[in-house]
């Protein structure tokens, strides 16, 4: 406990270097703009910046990437509330009550409520991040290949069993991601796989390019399809709004606590901010005495999903830095950044790169606190970004996406892939194939495969190895139960349903 606090102080010393403080502010502002603009989301906003970040010192670079995420988490809600246009998927739930409240004449208060909830969710996520991740990292040091593979199985099972959408399509999406990851040279044997004699496929698929295409262009296609109409509610945040916001938040402790807890839990297990916000909204609505008022602009309906989204965002960092398994696409891209710097995320990071890890954790604290004041002070200005005509910023986004995709590997073919992934992302969205697990599979593909191969070698070729090691067994069993949950749940309901 004390050790963690002293480590955090060391981290804060890193963060308070003027250069890093500047990076934090710049990153947050960029992040909020990324959050406000539809079609430019956290994941691809971070992905586009990766080539730039490579030229910086590692700590500053990763701080910049994570700031984009924190900024985007705050910023996504601004346009949800003011224009009913969610800038980010995790801000969709904020439109349910945020927009009605804004339309009903209290836009300032709605924004304050949202930011306060974000802040509380973030701080709670930071506390868990600070005190829980060292424990988890210590524990994860005992993991061998079989355990690593089992943890990944658990991650992907969570998408299949608890994802809510069609489990079969989730399986297809995950396997497709793994297949894309396997294209190119096999790192173990050096053989070329699935290149079918072409030179083009030899380099394989880079997941950053995939993210830029799937989340960038794919989103843009969806946005033009729906047509973007900005019906602005102009606003400023007055002291009265802040006072009433604080009062309302303290009057709704249940919504705040539900949101925060759901968020931190959902962020920790893979899923991320978007499902967390919906879940928190649902829970709060169900248990609220004034459930009928939800959707008409109640405070609790803003507080719960917003706290959940940001709690999930910050706590998603825990599995990424301790296990090397990102809980959300944005975290996956940040992890990609770490790997470009030669920092292997996982338990060894806490032993070998103490300064870096605690600098990152401290920057998460600072970034979310500074971010709160930045959005509170400048929300109306950020909202006015959307007043720029869509026909102006949309081609600019595509242009910047192309720069990002090219600069990852300096390959022209990646720009074509980006376009292909954009079309793919559009159809995936339309047909309910989930994108997030596919991206994670693409990121983790090589790691999952080598973990599995090593584990099988240890087990002399028998898959029993995953079920005999004391740490792997519970993980695998949990993974299997969660994986088959869509099949188990109806059976269980049939057996026990009548008693309950």
């Amino acid at each position: 406990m004390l050790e963690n606090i002293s480590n955090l102080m060391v981290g804060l010393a890193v963060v308070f270097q003027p250069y890093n403080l500047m990076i934090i502010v710049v990153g947050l502002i960029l992040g909020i703009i990324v959050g406000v603009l539809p079609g430019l989301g956290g994941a691809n906003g971070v992905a586009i910046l990766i080539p730039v970040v490579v030229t910086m010192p590692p700590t500053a670079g990763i701080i910049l990437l994570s700031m984009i995420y924190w900024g985007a988490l705050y910023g996504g809600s601004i346009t949800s509330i003011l224009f009913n246009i969610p800038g980010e998927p995790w801000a969709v739930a904020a439109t349910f009550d945020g927009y009605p409240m804004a339309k009903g004449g209290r836009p300032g208060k709605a924004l304050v409520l949202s930011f306060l909830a974000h802040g509380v969710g973030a701080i709670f996520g930071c506390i868990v991040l600070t005190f829980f991740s060292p424990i988890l990292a210590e524990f994860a040091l005992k993991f061998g290949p079989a355990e690593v593979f089992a943890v990944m199985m658990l991650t992907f099972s969570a998408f299949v069993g608890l994802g809510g959408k069609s489990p079969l399509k989730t399986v297809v999406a995950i396997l497709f991601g793994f297949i894309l990851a396997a294209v190119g040279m096999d790192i173990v044997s050096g053989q070329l796989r699935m290149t079918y004699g072409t030179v083009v496929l030899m380099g394989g698929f880079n997941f950053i390019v995939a993210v830029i295409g799937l989340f960038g262009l794919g989103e843009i296609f969806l946005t033009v399809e729906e047509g973007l109409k900005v019906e602005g509610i102009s606003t400023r945040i007055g002291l009265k709004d802040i006072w009433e916001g604080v009062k309302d938040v303290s009057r709704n402790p249940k919504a705040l606590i539900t949101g925060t807890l759901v968020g931190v839990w959902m962020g920790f297990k893979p899923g991320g901010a978007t499902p967390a916000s919906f879940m928190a909204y649902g829970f709060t609505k169900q248990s609220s005495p004034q459930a009928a008022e939800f959707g008409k602009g109640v405070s609790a309906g803003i507080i719960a999903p917003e706290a959940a989204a940001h709690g999930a965002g910050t706590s998603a960092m825990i599995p990424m830095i301790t296990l090397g398994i990102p809980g959300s696409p944005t975290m996956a891209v940040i992890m990609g950044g770490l790997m470009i710097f030669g920092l292997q995320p996982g338990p060894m990071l806490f032993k070998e790169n103490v300064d870096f890890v605690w600098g990152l954790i401290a920057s998460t604290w600072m970034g979310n606190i500074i971010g709160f004041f930045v959005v509170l002070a400048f929300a109306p200005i950020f909202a006015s970004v959307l007043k720029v005509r869509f026909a102006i910023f949309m081609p600019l986004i595509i242009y910047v996406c192309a720069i990002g995709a090219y600069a990852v590997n300096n390959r022209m073919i990646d720009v074509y892939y980006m376009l292909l992934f954009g079309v793919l992302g559009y159809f995936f969205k339309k047909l309910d194939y989930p994108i997030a697990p596919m991206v994670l599979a693409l990121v983790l593909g090589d790691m999952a495969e080598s973990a599995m191969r090593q584990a099988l070698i240890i087990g002399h070729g028998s898959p029993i190895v995953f079920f005999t090691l004391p740490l792997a067994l519970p993980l695998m069993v949990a993974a299997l139960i969660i994986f088959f949950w869509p099949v188990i749940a109806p059976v269980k309901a049939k057996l026990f349903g009548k008693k309950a």
Partner: protein
Amino acid sequence: MEIISLHCLLISDCLKGGNMRKAEIWVSLAFIFLGVIVIVDSIRLGFMWGSAGPASGFFPFYLGVGVVISSLFVFSKAFAKYKKEGAGKPLMPPGAIRPILWVLIPSASMIVITEFVGLHIAAALFLAFYMRVVGKIGWATTLLVGIISPLSLYIVFDKLFLIPLPQGLWGAYLLRF
């Protein structure tokens, strides 16, 4: 019989924006095809126990098998539903295909033009075209944004961060500073 009726689903409707269940069927078939070609290559590489543990094709082989099996389920579900309830709602809302193509074709052209004149010049053309022709934005704004943004991005990336962006065949002659 079923194959023939499937065949009729294709082209004609795709142009009208297609519809959900047919797209569902086609996408699942595409995944089955993908799975099969992955399996074929895995068999070539060897999918059993090699000289140093599992062979190169081991992991992809099971991925391919998994994709084929799960996509078969998706396919049969979608096909049964199609038989029973008809085509279902359209894949795209009416009239949506036009704005999408208006984004897709110019951005694809930008990428192709990049091969010749480099990314920044191609992007300048793309920006100007989209703003003026599709967005109907005034000439002044179009020219301003179309010139200033590629120029500033060129300076930031190529000059400040020293990240070289594609120059294409003739880009180096066109941008000489």
